[in-house]
């Protein structure tokens, strides 16, 4: 009797626990607490506390940084705060000074304009310079600093200087020196930007970098396509004396063949004659420099 009773009791209790959990879930959750908290902010203290587990702890902080960035970026909260991003990346790279991806992706995350990122190129450069102090011969870090100056500050002279410095380091690709020259001569030009991302795509050592380079190239393609569409809309307006109501009107008038979508597959918006990306397009926000100087 007892042999049968015990398993039955166990199954009953487990079923009750599952049922109660489902019931609790339907009843709603308690209000959220204070959100993400970073209890230890001192890299030195954390390094000591981690004993011989620096690298593993660095991995944990890296995962947290990725989650904070991705969670905030994709979240629907109107007040998007990336306040923990830099401290998390600082801790990651203090625990593991050779964590290249944390420097390079971290800088990309930090420099990304709001709402897609915190828009802190100063922190991106501080993080990368910390990497340069740890690995003075790593040309990727110099190149990344040049990129931040190029895209975030539009300071092409400084960007070209960093590319030049990268080109002198061991293992730097042969295109780095011409890139410095092109940046100095034609910085801000969309063609120069395209050249830069094509080189990154060609030499990417990581699938994420590859994806990012592809996204950036799609952004440039989208900007070219929008320029063409603006010219079409301007022609329509000049002939009709009013802007087109929508894409369908342009199709009917024979200006375009059908609804036009951006390289990410989301249709462009046309409102009162203004062509723009759809707010749901993952190509937003577009880079500032190339948009300003087509």
């Amino acid at each position: 009797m007892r042999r049968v009773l015990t398993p039955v009791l166990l199954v009953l209790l487990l079923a009750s626990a599952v049922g109660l959990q489902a019931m609790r879930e339907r009843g709603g959750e308690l209000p959220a607490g204070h959100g993400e908290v970073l209890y230890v902010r001192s890299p030195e203290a954390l390094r000591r506390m981690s004993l011989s587990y620096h690298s593993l702890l660095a991995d944990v902080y890296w995962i947290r940084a990725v989650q904070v960035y991705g969670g905030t970026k994709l979240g629907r909260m109107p007040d998007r705060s990336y306040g923990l991003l830099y401290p998390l990346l600082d801790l990651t790279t203090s625990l593991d000074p050779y964590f290249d991806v944390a420097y390079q992706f971290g800088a990309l995350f930090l420099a990304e304009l709001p709402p897609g990122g915190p828009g802190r190129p100063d922190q991106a450069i501080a993080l990368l310079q910390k990497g340069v102090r740890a690995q003075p011969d790593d040309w990727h870090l110099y190149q990344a600093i040049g990129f931040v100056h190029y895209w975030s500050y539009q300071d092409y002279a400084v960007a070209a200087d960093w590319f030049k410095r990268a080109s002198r380091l061991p293992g730097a690709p042969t295109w780095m020196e011409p890139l410095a020259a092109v940046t100095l001569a034609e910085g801000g030009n969309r063609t120069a930007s395209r050249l830069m991302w094509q080189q990154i795509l060609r030499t990417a050592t990581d699938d994420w970098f590859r994806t990012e380079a592809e996204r950036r190239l799609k952004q440039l393609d989208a900007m070219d396509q929008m320029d063409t569409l603006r010219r079409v809309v301007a022609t329509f307006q000049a002939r009709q004396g009013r802007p087109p109501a929508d894409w369908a009107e342009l199709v009917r008038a024979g200006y375009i063949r059908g609804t036009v979508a951006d390289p990410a597959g989301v249709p462009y918006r046309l409102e009162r004659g203004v062509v723009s990306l759809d707010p749901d397009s993952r190509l937003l926000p577009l880079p500032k420099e190339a948009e300003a100087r087509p």
Partner: protein
Amino acid sequence: MSAPRTIATVAVSVFRESVRDKVLYNLVAFAVLLMAASYLLGQLTAGQDIKIIKDLGLAAIATFGLMIAVFIGIGLVWKEVERRSIYSLLTKPLSRAEFILGKYCGLGLTLVVNVVVMVVAWYAVLAYMATSVSPEVRASWAAPAADPAMLRAVGLILVELMLVTALALFFSTFSSPFLSAGLTLGLWVIGHFNADLKNFEAVVDSRAAAWLAQGLYYVLPNFSAFDIKQQVVYAQPVPAGYLASTALYGAVYIALLLVASVAVFSRRDFK
């Protein structure tokens, strides 16, 4: 029976006992941890899953081994005394030194078997994960996912575990398991702060305190020296001289602790 054969007999019985005590179950936990991590990390780490599995594997090998070394090591002698089986053992043609060395070698054998199986599982997971990465990305790595050079770190972890075992055995010859565990783990933690002891004069004004810290730096086991995990994960060079001198340092310290254990145990009166 010759001394080496007697030691081997005791060692094999310790190994069998650890198998009976289901110590090897930790290998299942290790395998599950690695497989679950390799599946989940791809979604969370922005392409750093191979690096993280390398870090996780090395850390898990060191941690599982540490737990075995401490919690079995502290009971090696104490159990025999507590069960009173020590009385019948000492009536056999077995010296106290052979008993201690046999116990040590037995736990050492358990650790080696554990580490070898964990390393095989870890390399298998890494090799499998590498197949999911594009050939272009793989070609850009400084070292392959299942890089044999990482075995250098595993080797030093093993020496470190043997040193921890010797410490635990030493404490178990004269103190209770609870105290032995506290002392062993305490020394293991302090052994990772050796660099701070060496540079203590930079933070205190007292010369006496600085000298004391310097003395402790040289006397206490330097466990941080055995940690080259970060270097091997990044395929950085670790000079053969460093590996040899660190292994030799560990061997000498182990010998010191075993001699001390035999000396303490030989003086114990079980009447």
